[in-house]
């Protein structure tokens, strides 16, 4: 029940506790609860085996209206390859898309397929369609479901067995999580954006630093971020090992939701928004751990290795083994650099790139594309580049960008302007790196082979990616910002 703040004497609660407690169907043990799952995003790659499981056990989808389906992971981004499903060149991808279509039809699930302007990356369309709401639980068979935590939503990625579990029961058996608050004091410097902050935090706590925890991002720098920026931050909580990223609800959240909400929410707006306004950690709430970061210390970041915590400032150098404290880290550095074809001590600004990718559930929203376009300012992609592509996160993002003329800025500069999907973030379609190719990428993972077998990924912000495209190598955007820009 919602408590009245004037009479409440309950101990202060964290945002995680509030979100968790309101969805406990049954406490199962000291560690585990049966949690109710309000909303479920599905797509072509991790759902077919779940529907097959339902069929073989004779079960039905518990609440079809709680599920939203789209195609994103394996679909082509070239228009002529997706006019209809039969145009998809990859026969296996085609079969997965067809299987999803059959499954959503059989179970009466809402679906935004190819050719629908609402098609796009699951974590882009949920928020922009007003489907992601504060105070809810959201799951998807995708680890970047943490993105939705930006709305004061308990959202996390699950495997296919759990996709089936939620389809069948609307619930999951979930182990309680510990809390880690990352407090970011002050304001981010000019030219430093949410992606840089995310990489800085991951480097600070390590790629396994958040295991077993929900990370709540708080402080002045987070309050100043747009919803897009908060989504970028929560999206990458999983790269620090945390399944859940969270930001408390404030006016920025409510404003974003109100602009996109459906009639059902708008008809209950006063009640709903009053409820959502309570969704923040109370002052004095106890966290299991806390990390404090001064926003002024955060520079534009670039990753140099094969784990997202292997990052340095844009004007920095690749670490040397002797700089690292433990043997495992030294070995990881050597393995990474051998794969990346780089030497210790190299300045990042001396590293040339072959391809540039702007897209993914981390950085393909309208604000990301505006930021990238602003960095272009009439300049052109370096002739040394093999490819530079922009893949909007959804059909709606693409339409908005085209209304603003951003697509022309990209295309005139030499970028390809594609149709929405996950694309080169994971290279399940034909957008990928070839062996040895180096990419400045706005995506979330620099793992070996992530963007294509043998490909070398460097994670950066949208403006850093554009700067790398223009110069054919990494540059520090603080020194590259176009003179005539705001």
């Amino acid at each position, binding site marked *: 029940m919602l408590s009245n703040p004037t009479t409440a004497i309950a101990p202060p609660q964290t945002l995680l506790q509030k979100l968790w407690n309101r969805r406990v169907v049954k406490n199962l043990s000291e560690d*585990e609860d049966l949690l109710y799952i309000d909303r479920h995003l599905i797509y072509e790659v991790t759902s077919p085996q779940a529907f097959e499981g339902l069929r073989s056990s004779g079960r039905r989808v518990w609440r079809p209206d709680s599920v939203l389906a789209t195609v994103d992971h394996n679909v082509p981004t070239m228009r002529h390859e997706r006019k209809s499903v039969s145009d998809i060149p990859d026969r*296996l991808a085609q079969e997965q898309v067809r299987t999803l279509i059959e499954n959503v039809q059989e179970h009466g699930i809402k679906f935004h397929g190819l050719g629908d302007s609402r098609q796009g990356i699951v974590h882009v369309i949920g928020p922009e369609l007003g489907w992601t709401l504060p105070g809810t639980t959201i799951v998807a068979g995708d680890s970047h479901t943490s993105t939705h935590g930006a709305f004061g939503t308990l959202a996390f990625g699950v495997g296919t067995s759990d996709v089936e579990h939620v389809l069948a029961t609307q619930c999951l058996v979930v*182990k309680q999580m510990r809390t880690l608050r990352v407090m970011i004091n002050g304001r981010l410097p000019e030219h430093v954006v949410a992606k840089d902050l995310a990489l800085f935090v991951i480097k600070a706590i390590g790629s396994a630093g958040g295991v077993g925890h929900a990370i709540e991002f708080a402080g002045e720098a987070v309050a100043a971020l747009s919803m897009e920026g908060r989504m970028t931050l929560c999206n990458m909580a999983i790269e620090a090992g*945390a399944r859940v990223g969270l930001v408390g609800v404030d006016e920025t959240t409510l404003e974003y939701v109100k602009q996109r909400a459906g009639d059902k929410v708008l008809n209950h707006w006063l009640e709903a928004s009053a409820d959502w306004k309570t969704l923040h950690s109370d002052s004095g709430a106890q966290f299991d751990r806390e990390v404090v970061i001064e926003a002024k210390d955060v520079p534009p970041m670039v990753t140099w290795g094969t784990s997202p915590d292997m990052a340095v400032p844009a004007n920095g150098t690749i670490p040397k083994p002797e700089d690292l404290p433990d043997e495992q880290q030294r*070995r*990881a550095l050597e393995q990474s650099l051998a794969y990346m074809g780089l030497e210790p001590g190299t300045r990042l600004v001396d590293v040339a790139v072959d391809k540039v990718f702007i897209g993914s559930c981390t950085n393909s929203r309208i604000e990301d594309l505006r930021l990238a376009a602003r960095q272009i300012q009439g300049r052109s992609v370096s002739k040394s580049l093999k490819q530079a592509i922009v893949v909007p996160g959804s059909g709606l993002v693409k339409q908005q960008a085209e209304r603003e003329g951003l697509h022309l800025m990209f295309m005139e500069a030499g970028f390809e302007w594609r149709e929405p999907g996950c694309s080169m973030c994971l*290279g399940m379609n034909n957008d990928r790196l070839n062996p040895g190719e180096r990419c400045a990428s706005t995506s979330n993972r620099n793992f070996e082979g992530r963007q294509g*077998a043998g490909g070398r990924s460097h994670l950066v912000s949208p403006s850093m990616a554009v700067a790398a495209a223009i110069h054919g190598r990494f540059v520090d955007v603080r020194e590259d910002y176009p003179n005539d820009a705001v």
Partner: protein
Amino acid sequence: MTPFDTHKGKVLPLDRSNVDTDAIIPKQYMKSIRKTGYGDFLFDAWRYKDVGELGMNCALRAKNMDFPINMERFKDASILLVRRNFGCGSSREHAAWALKDAGFRVIIGESFADIFYGNAIKNGILPIMLPADVIEMLFEEANSAVGLHARVDLASRALAVSSGQSWSFEISDDVRERLLKGLDDVGISLQWIDDIIDFEAKQREREPWLYS
């Protein structure tokens, strides 16, 4: 789910930290719509010299003989020894399916990523966490000429190795119970069907905006 009570087998050392699920099973294999058939593609990019595709006959592919899975002395290993943060990254359950298909029933490491840990359990694979110094010693023994065998008894939370030492490991009572009995998770939740229906009725009152 596949039950797990005891297991005895040979240990295969994979000496890397942060082994992500993209490395365990690369994306091209996620185009399959089945839960099986991934075993030959486990650690594909490290194991073979070429880039694989679904449907390939892996017996004909050029193998990287420096990778432990291809070494004769680790043939038929069913226990994987790893470092820290094994299974990080993507939530793909295909990683657990591939390990299971390739015959692995136990993974011993310093730590595991959350989503992978759950996926492993759901497929009858037991992840065992032990301190770094123990893991270091196990690597030395597994890499020695005689190799290492281990025996796991889940009921008593015990791991014993061929060199004579044994340890007890931590695992939550809930998870242990489910693994021992091989319980169907969905079936467990459906025991509480009345509670779920009751929860929905109350939520519909309290948060009507969530219902169409």
